[in-house]
């Protein structure tokens, strides 16, 4: 069926055929809701087009599970490469027979009486309900200080970065110490380009704890299931940077101390650039102390869970890790014009792109206001954002529970709002 001229009418429309949009499609099919999934590129487009070459999932293969689909290979403890993730999601689309329209870019969404009008480059739709599953990482966030970077330096965002070879030879300043920042710092430094990393607030996690994957403990202890309405400050929880983890075949821990051992220089948060000199915060030791304390609190929680669950006998003993090492006197400034630094890499986070959304649901920071994925516009839902409904919401395995909750809400909404009209 072509949609070039006629207006398509349908109960539900999902924007985005990534793992979240497909999980929602699967739930909608299970609830007999007639729907369509629009995708600007191919299935799993962001995983195909917007990820660096070496990236692997942070979650082990046993955790690659979606409603009705899971990893069935032999490497349960391995970490998928991007081509493997694409196959996994492609298989899911095929298995669930998702009604995906690929190559269809949404250009505008407006609220109309009884639903939404969705304009695309391939026709338009009028729908009763809308699920926005277009991703959390569409655009790289770059701080205002970027404008003051001297013109001779190259700047690359985490979205544009593919591999070290695209960078000039010479020193690199990596800004940001989330999973992305640390992985890029390690990879770029190993390529022979000396790296300095600017470190603000971050989340430190050991890869292995008491003989098991940290993800295993967070999974069984219910940490990942913690709900958005159970945490003290959900706004802060949603903004927490990704934990310093890396999925590698040799299962290594990546933290600031391992980077120091490899020769990467640690500095505080980049706070300004004046007269060609970058200025760094003197708070590095405190942000490291905060991250160490938070890590130890999580480990203590896991220890307590192990005792309560009678698993102490079958687990390795309690471990505590060396506090993050910040050596010597901390430099607060760095000359950006003497040729030592040739490239600045911004690993300062991502944000969604809602430039196509013409429904008044955005807050002053440009995020969609929502209560666990239910927006203020009746019939409009969000999926696949950090801590949307649970701590695991942004992970592949976290989207299933969210999708089923929201599918139930959507189904009830359709029934309550439309059944009496239609009949």
């Amino acid at each position, binding site marked *: 069926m072509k949609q070039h001229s006629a207006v398509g009418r349908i109960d539900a429309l999902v924007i985005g055929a990534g793992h979240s949009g497909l999980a929602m499609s699967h739930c909608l099919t299970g609830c007999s809701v007639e729907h369509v999934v629009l995708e600007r590129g191919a299935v799993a487009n962001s995983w195909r087009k917007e990820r660096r070459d070496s990236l692997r999932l942070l979650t082990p293969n046993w955790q690659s599970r979606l409603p*009705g689909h899971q990893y069935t290979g032999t490497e349960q403890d391995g970490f998928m490469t991007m081509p493997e993730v694409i196959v996994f999601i492609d298989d899911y689309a095929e298995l669930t027979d998702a009604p995906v329209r690929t190559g269809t870019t949404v250009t505008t969404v407006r609220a109309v009486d009884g639903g939404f009008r969705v304009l695309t480059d391939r026709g338009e739709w009028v729908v009763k309900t809308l699920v926005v599953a277009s991703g959390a990482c569409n655009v790289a966030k770059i701080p205002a200080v970027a404008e003051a970077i001297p013109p001779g330096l190259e700047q690359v965002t985490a979205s544009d970065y593919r591999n070290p070879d695209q960078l000039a030879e010479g020193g690199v300043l990596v800004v940001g110490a989330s999973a992305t920042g640390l992985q890029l710092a390690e990879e770029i430094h190993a390529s022979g380009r000396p790296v300095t990393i600017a470190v603000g607030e971050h989340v430190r996690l050991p890869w292995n704890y008491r003989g098991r994957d940290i993800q295993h403990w967070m999974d069984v202890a219910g*940490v990942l299931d913690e709900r958005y309405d159970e945490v003290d400050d959900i706004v802060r929880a949603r903004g927490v940077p990704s934990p310093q983890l890396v999925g590698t075949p040799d299962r290594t821990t990546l933290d600031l101390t391992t980077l120091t051992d490899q020769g990467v220089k640690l500095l505080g948060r980049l706070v300004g650039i004046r007269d060609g000199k970058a200025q760094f915060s*003197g708070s590095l030791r405190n942000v490291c102390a905060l991250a160490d304390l938070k890590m130890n609190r999580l480990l203590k929680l896991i220890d307590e869970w192990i005792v309560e669950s009678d698993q102490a006998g079958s687990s390795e003993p309690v471990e505590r890790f060396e506090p993050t090492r910040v050596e010597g006197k901390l430099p607060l400034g760095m000359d950006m014009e003497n040729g030592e630094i040739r490239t600045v890499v911004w690993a300062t986070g991502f944000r969604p792109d809602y430039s196509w959304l013409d429904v008044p649901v955005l807050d002053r920071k440009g995020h969609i206001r929502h209560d666990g994925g239910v927006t203020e516009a009746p019939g409009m839902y969000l999926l696949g954002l950090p801590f949307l409904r649970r701590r695991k919401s942004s992970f592949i395995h976290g989207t299933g529970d969210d999708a089923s909750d929201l599918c139930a809400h959507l*189904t009830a909404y359709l029934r309550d709002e439309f059944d009496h009209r239609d009949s």
Partner: protein
Amino acid sequence: MLWLIDVMVCCMIPGHRPGAFCRYLEEVRTMNNEQKVVDNGVNVEALLAAREALTETPEAAKFQWRATSNWVNGTQAHSTVEGFYGLGEEQKHVTEYSFDTDHPEIFASEDKGATPVELVLVGLAGCLTAGIAAVAQNREIQLRSVTTTLEGGMDIQGILGIDTDVRTGFDGIKVHYDIDADASQEDIEALVAQSQKRSAVFDIITNTTEVTVDVN
């Protein structure tokens, strides 16, 4: 076909299945509620209410702090603070506060007050201490005493222009706490770390601030 059952269940039960972690949190909350009342003299409820109100009205959160200073004689200055701006209007302290700054006699001054750099240390101590009390109250930790000792190192070759490679200001600040409180060592460390994170003066000192100066 297990997945089909899964979908049917998931579509029928929107509620959550509380994991052990959620139950653990509940227990901790219950335990905390049964403890004796903690009072550090900080009205945390009012602070949290203000935080919520200012989230809705970000304009009211814009404050301006002011000081006025007059040269007295020699290296002595007499400074006062009274008015400030916030919550959308002019505000006032309950009274005017004044501070005299000068330099010690070994600088050939008359030592009529603290040195300005000592006042910076005082500002940092005051800010961190206030933060510790507020965070402790919020975390239901009873404080008995908080003593802070601060040291700012300085090579005065910078001020005197002897060596241009030497920084004029502090080359580092060391802060030491002695805290007596109903809490574990780890909780006290977390208190100290959190108070730095939320401290305005800590931010002013560790990060850079643009200073604009004009005359007449």
